[in-house]
């Protein structure tokens, strides 16, 4: 059952991820990206990582992509759909993609740990939100706080930049 679900959602995720690039209309691309996030969240849920899966939907599909869509709709989409396919750019993109795939497979194969099978994670009986909280705040407290400060700084920066543009 889980294997079937894995294949359904992986295929859905990869297909919609490809569609993000292939669609000419930016709104179609944005909605494909939303579908990608939903399928990714479903994959997390099949791994019993409910918290990460739901946060994936809440943050990316529910907030970030709504803002994206909001901006895209204000653009002139007709100009975008009229744009011709650039053969040289397409060939270059495919070459880079091919090189990347070859590189990744070579690296992964050369690693001795790639042949290992990982044992299933131990179950503690606590909800996974609790586990993530414990790990973050006990094991990685300093990096977590640093990221918090970084986000605060960037938020303040955004506010300052947007105010200056207003005046």
């Amino acid at each position, binding site marked *: 059952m889980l294997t079937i679900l894995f294949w359904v959602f992986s295929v859905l995720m990869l297909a919609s991820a490809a569609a993000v690039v292939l669609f000419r209309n930016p*709104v179609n691309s944005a*909605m494909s990206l*939303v579908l990608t996030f939903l399928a990714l969240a479903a994959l997390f849920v099949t791994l019993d990582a*409910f*918290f990460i899966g*739901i*946060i994936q*939907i*809440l943050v990316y*599909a*529910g*907030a970030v992509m*709504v*803002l994206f*869509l*909001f901006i895209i*709709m*204000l653009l002139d989409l007709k100009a975008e759909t009229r744009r011709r396919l650039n053969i040289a750019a397409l060939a270059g993109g495919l070459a880079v993609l091919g090189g990347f795939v070859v590189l990744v497979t070579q690296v992964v194969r050369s690693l001795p740990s790639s042949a290992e099978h990982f044992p299933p994670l131990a179950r503690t009986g606590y*909800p*996974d*939100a609790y586990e993530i909280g414990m790990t973050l705040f006990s094991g990685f407290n300093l990096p977590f706080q640093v990221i918090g400060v970084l986000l605060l700084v960037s938020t303040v920066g955004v506010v300052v930049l947007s105010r200056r543009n207003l005046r």
Partner: protein
Amino acid sequence: MPSLDLFFQPEIFLVWTATLKTVVILGLVLTMVAYSVWAERKVSAFIQDRVGPNRVGWAGLIQPIADGVKLLLKENFVPGGVNKFFFSIAPSLAMIPAILVLAVLPFGSSLFSVPMVIANLDIGVLWVFAVSSLGVYGIVLAGWASNSKYPFLGGIRSSSQMISYELSLGLSVVPIFMITGTLNLGEIVQYQVDHGWMVFPAWFQSGGGLLEVTTKSGSRFGFDLEQTLLWIPMMISFVIFIIAMFAETNRMPFDLPEAEQELIGGYHTEYSSMRFALFFLGEYAAMIAGAGVIVTLFLGGWSLPFIPDGSQGWFWGLVNIGTFFAKVAAVIFFFLWVRWTLPRFRFDQLMHLGWYVFFEVALVNIFLTAGLLAYLQS
């Protein structure tokens, strides 16, 4: 003849009980949707000193069926120049999230020791926020795909409004998690059974306190010092949450995405027939789901003081389910009452209120709760 034991194997039992619960809840909520439209018209008529629908059936009770038939039989007109794909899926996208929220709401305690919740997720509250935040896509896409000015303005207004109010909505419930220590909606309700409702913490089965009364059945009633102190941030949370819920469900006084006087009908101006009906139903389904969330988080869910839960027999299980839906109906009445009493906000006032008032108050409220909890535990 295959034995009945097959039905009681754990996995199969889970599948058919979950299916049964889903079907019953879906049927019940869709009926509620139809009759909340009727209630809306009746309540508005009462408030404006009119009669309201009274031609079809007694007191107009068959009116929703007549409306449904009318909408089904109308021409499903698609204007020229629309984006056909998004134009046709947008109404469904508006309807689906509202229905999905119902999956995690505990609508009763238990019946024949089957828990009365479709999916008992440990992160139930986050599921509610995640799914309801997807509801904006239906509206935004409808506004954009219609290829028309007024729907577009409605869609833009809707997305900015929803993003703004989602923040205060999410932040306002953080104090509840801090107090209950769980994200599971069923456990939050159980906490309220033990310690009193979030908005009225006056009965409890554990702890000791002021003005204590013990009933014959052993459950105690009174005011607990701890709960009474925590009641202050809970009331702030409750007020912010309920107002943000009005904005999330696009209800008056925050119904700017469809504001008839300014935008004709907003995002659904170009829709007709069943597609329009889906928007309409989606909006009421979102209102019912929102009312269910309010009841679960703040008003004690299925619990009533001195009423035992479903483990004491199926009769009490049914009473608990009835209690939940009665509370939901009361909250819906409150929604209707507000709609026909208050005037609409201006859009800049709406954004100002969301960003400059509720967001800050919700943040301060979290610190207040943390301070109170630290004080009580020391």
